[in-house]
């Protein structure tokens, strides 16, 4: 402060005398005069940008959500139990045909029995027989059906009863399966260790003997028929009808492997049946007996046929419970795991392609903007023409051409072909945006004095481009390339959703291919298959846009101090 006054007053020497003398300080001869150093730290360009970014709450939230999604995409494929299944048994990743279209479930909702997101579904119009089937189920996870409503409908004179049930889509009941001898022995050892071997709680259940029961029932029907003929009355069934009844019942038993009790035809009808109750109102089991003991396993061409509670057997066999947070698809694959894979693929593709586009666009735009004139004109016309051809045309041509190229296919596989086709299609015209921005920035900076000064000092073109102009344009360019990532992800998901690229045999998953699967399964029938991929892609899009806008504002130095 004192020095300022001194400086000021040297110019107006007239007033020097009026200044009180105690304001003056004597200067020693060996003392140099300096400006005072800043006491605060200078705010660099990046630091200023970061400060402006940190003020934007929406961008911060968006950045956190993107971080979480990236974490989801990186961590889940490694820690998920699906990633550790036997690769020989499941060559294309885990799937179980017994759990197709399983509904999303989570442990909290399941424990609280909330009725949504707990793997249960309300089904209407269930006949009495099916209700009985669920109630009589002999698996370890009964009861599995909860009656919501009983509907009595009058059709003509008859009253038909339907039930509305809440069914757990993970209760598959008991299944008859063939396992190897080794696996069977392991299962027996496990059950003995747990003390549940050949008990009610065991994984293995007694085998059914439908054949001998149906033979017995056929004989009974034939006897009834013969008795009627002997008495001279019209027989209730004919020979032909009996075989049809037996066929129908056999089909029913094969289809519903959890039915373990005797069923008989309803009034000799060929397509409906009732459960046979004995005098004590109990059903009669059709378990296979051997010397008063239940038969649990049977040899079948070198394999062992057993009847298991499938839920428990699955847990024993795979080492994790069949509970799928986001449900399963038509092949019984876990959507949660596949969504993580898809997000990883989409993010990698988005970032990778944006990076390539950024580099190409930077070089192209730099040359076109820096040199200007004829070079610029020609380069502009070239980009005009390139941008005319839609991405979808390039993608289609590339994917067909690559798929038909046998050498390429054997070298990089179907997955590699998809990646290559996407790369070509999105790089083909994706860099034009960056090139345009770079060109604008070059036009802005190349005429400025500092560039002229540098040139006067002998700087060559590459030095001017890369050392002097490009760093100035970096902020704008980086932001525009961040905003390119959601564009690529959106384009990829749209094209895969439309089925322009066929993912089915590639072993790759993208969010778009999950959407494609979901729409093939039917929005009405299985909305959960579309819901979760839609949520993830919407979150990605919103967050990347918010984050990119935040970055743009942060790097925009004209906004410095405007919010304060």
């Amino acid at each position, binding site marked *: 402060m004192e020095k300022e006054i001194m400086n000021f007053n040297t110019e107006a020497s007239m007033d020097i005398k009026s200044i009180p003398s105690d304001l003056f300080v004597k200067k020693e001869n060996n003392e140099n005069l300096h400006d005072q150093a800043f006491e605060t730290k200078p705010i660099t360009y990046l630091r200023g940008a970061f400060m402006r970014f940190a003020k934007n709450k929406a961008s911060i939230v968006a950045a956190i959500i993107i971080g979480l999604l990236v974490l989801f995409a990186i961590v889940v494929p490694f820690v998920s139990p699906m990633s550790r299944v036997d690769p020989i048994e499941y060559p294309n990743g885990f799937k179980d045909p017994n759990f197709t279209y399983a509904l999303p479930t989570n442990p909290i909702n399941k424990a609280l029995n909330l009725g949504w997101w707990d793997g249960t579904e309300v089904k209407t119009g269930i006949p009495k027989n099916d209700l009985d089937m669920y109630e009589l189920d002999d698996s370890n996870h009964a009861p599995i059906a909860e009656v919501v409503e009983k509907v009595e409908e009058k059709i003509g004179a008859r009253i038909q009863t339907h039930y509305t049930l809440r069914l757990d889509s993970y209760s598959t009941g008991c299944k008859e399966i063939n396992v190897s001898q080794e696996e069977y022995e392991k299962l027996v050892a496990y059950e003995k260790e747990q003390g549940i071997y050949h008990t009610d709680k065991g994984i293995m259940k007694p085998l059914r003997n439908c054949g001998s029961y149906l033979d017995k029932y056929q004989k009974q029907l034939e006897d009834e028929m013969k008795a009627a003929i002997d008495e001279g009355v019209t027989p209730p069934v004919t020979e032909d009808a009996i075989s049809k009844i037996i066929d129908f019942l056999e089909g029913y038993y094969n289809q519903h492997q959890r039915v373990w009790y005797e069923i008989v035809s309803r009034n000799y009808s060929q397509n409906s049946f009732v459960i046979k109750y004995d005098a004590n109102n109990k059903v009669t089991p059709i378990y296979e007996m051997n010397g008063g003991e239940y038969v649990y396993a049977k040899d079948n061409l070198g394999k062992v046929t057993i009847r298991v509670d499938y839920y428990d057997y699955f847990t024993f066999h795979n080492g994790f419970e069949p509970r799928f947070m986001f449900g399963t698809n038509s092949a019984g694959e876990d959507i949660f795991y596949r969504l993580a894979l898809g997000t990883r693929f989409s993010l990698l593709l988005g970032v990778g392609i944006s990076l390539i586009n950024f580099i190409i666009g930077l070089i192209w735009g730099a040359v076109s903007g820096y040199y200007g004139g004829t070079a610029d004109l020609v380069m502009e016309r070239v980009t005009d023409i390139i941008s*005319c051809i*839609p991405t*979808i*045309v390039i993608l289609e*041509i590339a994917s067909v051409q690559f798929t038909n190229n046998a050498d390429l296919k054997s070298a990089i596989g179907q997955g590699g072909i998809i990646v290559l086709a996407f790369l070509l299609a999105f790089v083909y015209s994706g860099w034009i945006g960056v090139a345009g921005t770079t060109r604008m920035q070059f036009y802005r900076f190349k005429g400025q004095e500092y560039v002229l000064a540098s040139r006067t000092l002998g700087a060559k073109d590459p030095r001017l481009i890369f050392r002097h102009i490009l760093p100035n344009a970096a902020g704008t360019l980086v932001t525009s390339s961040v905003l390119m990532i959601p564009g690529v992800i959106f384009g990829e998901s749209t094209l895969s959703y*439309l089925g322009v690229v066929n993912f089915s045999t590639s072993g790759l998953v993208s969010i778009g291919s999950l959407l494609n699967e979901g729409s093939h399964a039917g929005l009405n029938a299985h909305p959960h298959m579309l819901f979760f991929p839609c949520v993830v892609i*919407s979150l990605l*899009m919103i967050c990347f*846009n918010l984050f990119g806008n935040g970055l743009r504002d942060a790097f925009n130095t004209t906004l410095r101090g405007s919010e304060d």
Partner: protein
Amino acid sequence: MKQKKKEIETEDTILDEKKPLDVSNASSDELVLESDRPFLERFGRGFVNFWRNKSTIDTLKYILKRLLLMVFTFGIVFVVCFVLIRLLPIDENTGMDDKEKFYLSMVSKGIYRRIENPDGTYTYEVMPILLQFVNFIKNLFSGSDHPFGYSYRIQWLISPHEILGSRLTPTILMNIYTMIVSVPVGLGLGTFMALRKNHWEDHVLSVLIMLVISVPSYVYAFVLQYLFGYVWQIFPPTAASSTVGYFSPTYFASIILPVLSMCFGSIAGYARYTRAELTEVLTSDFMLLARTKGLSRGQATVRHAFRNSLVPIFPMILGEIIGVLSGSMIIEAIFNVNGVGGLYLESITKQDYDVFQFVSMFYIFIGLVGTLVVDISYGIGDPRITMGGGK
């Protein structure tokens, strides 16, 4: 109060007489501000002045240059697409038994050459691509009834332009309905937001618009289809078949959902753009002048601000009008609409190359024409912009 207003008006007129603001466009007896005239009149005047203007020759030159450039670009793009598509492997298994017809059509297009064997049978051979191109051009101008080739998988041996013609109606209808809804609503919302700038309404709507623009269109198409189509069953979840007639109420009801899902993005786009333009215009000096003249806020906004903000928005709408011919592939796929977008997708998934080529070129052509018209209309709508105005 009234008198005061009059005074200001007369002052305004005097001011105008001394220094006409629009020397280039208004003759001396017209003392009205250019922005005071109704928009259409202004547009018409702009059009008339455009022809009277001394620089009309320059403008015409510019348009001609742009047209030639467009034809040139289209030609190059066409050659590139043609070569790329012809490089694709030809799948002779068309799913139809009549192989001979397939070969004959390929010969008539000049893709195959027929070679007679000594034993009287024929074999067919693929021609070089350059010759294929020459044959294609010949075929195009020879007045053949299949100038653009044949469809093999979508409609057996029908010309692609006939198929495209039959698919245009639903696409155009859908796009027009979308425009009828989204242009007024979008402009209205944008104006409302600009007037309520930095109030809570503006903030809420801005967030909503950001969400709608970010979320992919198929996501809200799914939501609409699931909720309105399947759960509540208010509208049919998919478009009706063309047999009911495109103008029947049944068909209209069935395309409400696709139109709605297209409207969301469109409305958000218009609203955002209008808001940006209008806030810029509302803060300009002539608005202050208009208010000083004594116009109420509403008058000033409608007569001066809104019309001026329309200058860049109008070409946007014009571009969309041309774009009604091209259908949205994804919306048509979701709602099963039998339109141009659906045809494009079908030609890709079924690999029907002649149709694919024709529809691709159709889309590219519409894109080019749209850009051209938008660029030219900027100059016509706003007399301040001189077209091809050099450096």
